[in-house]
């Protein structure tokens, strides 16, 4: 656990630094301004990973991470406004770009398998993604309209 913790922290420092650079190059947020927000996000991620390790439930670690982030920023929770102000400096797209850069490098290995797939699989695959995305949006739209929210 302790060894893992050290590894996690080192990896998060590297990922955080890359996100900081992206936030600077792409969205003009100076590194010093994004450091508190990145530190908060990484702290929340670490807490989620640790809790996931310690608790016996079959719940994915990202569920813990999301819930910790939500609870810490609920209105009225001490320090919530500070965390919101810090993390607002970290652009969502600056977080997403390194994720997909790592993803791109990682999917290279699957490329050979991918080109072996027939055209039928590609067609069906596109409709699978379209179906889940459009299906969810349609239901959300109907319910939100019925409630008069949009």
């Amino acid at each position, binding site marked *: 656990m302790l060894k893992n913790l050290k590894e996690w922290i080192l990896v998060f420092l590297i990922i955080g630094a890359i996100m900081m650079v992206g936030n600077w190059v792409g969205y003009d947020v100076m590194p010093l301004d994004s450091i508190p927000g990145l530190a908060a996000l990484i702290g929340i*991620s670490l807490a989620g990973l640790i809790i996931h390790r310690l608790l016996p439930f079959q719940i994915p670690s990202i569920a813990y991470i999301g819930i910790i982030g939500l609870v810490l920023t609920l209105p009225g929770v001490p320090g919530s406004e500070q965390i919101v102000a810090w*993390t607002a400096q970290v652009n969502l797209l600056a977080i997403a770009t390194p994720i997909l*850069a790592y993803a791109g490098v990682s999917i290279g290995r699957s490329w050979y398998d991918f080109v072996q797939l027939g055209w039928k699989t590609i067609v069906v695959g596109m409709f*699978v993604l379209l179906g889940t995305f*459009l299906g969810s949006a349609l239901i959300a739209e109907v319910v*939100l309209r019925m409630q008069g929210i949009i």
Partner: protein
Amino acid sequence: MAEQTQKLWKDWRLHLVVLAIVIVTESIGVHSIPLGPGVILLLPMLYAVIIGLALYFTPLVKEKQSINAEPLVFLSVSVLIAKFGVNAGPAISQIIEAGPALLLQELGNLGTIFLALPIAVFLGIKRESIGMTHSIGREANLALITDKFGLSSPEGRGVMAMYIFGTVFGSIFIGLISGFLATVTPLHPLSFAMATGVGSGSMAAAALGPLVAAYPDMSEQLTAFSGVSNLISSVTGLYMSIFVGLPVTIKLYEILSRRKEAKVKGSVGYVKKP
């Protein structure tokens, strides 16, 4: 997953490649292609996945980097999920108000069955189509189908094909259609934000990015709703597949293939029920 993080930080070649990709793609910035009444948004993250994939075929990236990159996707996604969380807290009253929509849109993930399964059967795909269309076929579904049918069964081959398709093409495809659908259909961006919880972190990022870029004024609300949708999907997704998705897919497959059978009499396509 945690065991794999051993020595990950030491792979400097990988981190420098990713840093270079980030600097280059963020410098290029967002570009948009008008397409009819809608817009296709090209974001740095989209270039990043394509450049990352292309670099795999250069001496810059070796097999080792590609293997190490996988757990790094998971760890960097956790930072994204934390960002989802801190956007959700301040928006809690809106989230509770929109609770019914957030919960019910989970059923929309069954849309893949009703849209893609008939197409798969029409194209002549047999029981593979059950594995292909019962869900978007990420890790959890791969495990579910393997457990139920075995990986070498037709269903197993189907889910494996979809897993490979989603791995390579998923985030690129959903990143391209998300912004376009939001600008071309009359549906509200909030509805699409709720739809981004598809059960894959990198696909969620790829789907939300264009929405945030197209509607910057709503960025925090969109992120909050996307985050809660992802949270709900990550907890309920697998159970939805076990108790609803897979049984519905099997039933619908039997109906569709029987109807097709009746039309094409004497074809060799009949598959016996196991």
